[in-house]
């Protein structure tokens, strides 16, 4: 029973005036996105990524795994592409550094899969073998030590992928991965394309934030 004088609650009346609240709503949108990405403020880009490198990397990014869990069971995950920064290099080796921001890893990080993608340009009818060394921080000091290495045989020019093992994944979860490319045999060191923006090597990792010791319900 409507009390005398009270207005009909669903009748016409002033709706939300969006324009006068626009600034407030824009700030709310910013805060909403930053909070969900675990960021205190928007990132400022240290090194702009060329469009060509971005396009190539996205084309190479592998799709979701076949056994992907149904949507409601998956916590928020991140697919990260980290471009190589060339470190110490010489005629017979090239060191590549990859940085993983601590934003996505604020609460620790579980690397679900990681792979190293690189582009090779070979002379016709030639094969080439390369040693990929994975470095990790030694527990006692800040020196890098070889944690594992992979010998790859490459027989054709183009993109190549190396699935990284637990040692490299552990280094990624600590925020910094170092790889060293040591070619074997005669073919020139410059077979791995470094400078061309569209073919920059990168590491693609699928990451789940939160505690690494996840209890799986059977």
């Amino acid at each position, binding site marked *: 029973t409507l009390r005398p004088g009270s207005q009909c609650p669903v009748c016409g009346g002033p709706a939300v005036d969006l324009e006068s609240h626009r600034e407030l709503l824009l700030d709310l949108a910013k805060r909403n*996105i930053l909070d969900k*990405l675990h960021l205190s403020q928007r990132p400022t880009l240290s090194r702009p990524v060329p469009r060509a490198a971005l396009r190539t990397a996205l084309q190479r990014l592998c799709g979701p795994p076949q056994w992907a869990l149904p949507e409601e069971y998956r916590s928020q995950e991140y697919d990260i592409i980290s*471009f190589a920064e060339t470190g110490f290099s010489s005629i017979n080796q090239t060191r590549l550094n990859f*940085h993983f921001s601590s934003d996505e890893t604020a609460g620790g990080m579980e690397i679900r899969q990681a792979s190293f993608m690189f582009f090779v340009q070979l002379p016709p009818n030639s094969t080439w073998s390369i040693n990929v060394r994975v470095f990790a921080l030694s527990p006692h000091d800040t020196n890098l030590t070889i944690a594992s290495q992979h010998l790859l045989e490459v027989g054709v020019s183009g993109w190549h992928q190396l699935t990284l093992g637990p040692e490299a994944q552990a280094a990624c979860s600590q925020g910094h991965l170092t790889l060293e490319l040591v070619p074997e045999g005669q073919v020139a060191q410059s077979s791995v394309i470094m400078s061309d923006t569209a073919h920059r090597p990168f590491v693609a990792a699928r990451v789940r934030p939160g505690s690494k010791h996840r209890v799986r319900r059977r």
Partner: protein
Amino acid sequence: GIDCQGGSRMCCRQEFFVDFREIGWQDWIIQPEGYAMNFCTGQCPLHVAGIPGIAASFHTAVFNLLKANTAAGAGGSCCVPTVQRPLSLLYYDRNSNIVKTDIPDMVVEACGCS
């Protein structure tokens, strides 16, 4: 759910789109071009509590409870999101890495009365 139009004060979904260029975020967010930060607004008089329920019978059950307990005015019904979907973002982090993630429950698709 109902989308807000004109001056209706009934619980409805108010659409609000933020273009990332308007807030200067287009340099670090690669995709999408904006964020639909829709929200729920409006009143929920008691006789519409539970609308739109997942099943029509849900509202009827609530309505009968209210009548049976003459709960006129007791407690309240709020205008809340009833359907939401994730927001997929592709962005650069501060190391210039490219990051892709799906943030759950970020876009309100429909509103209703609790």
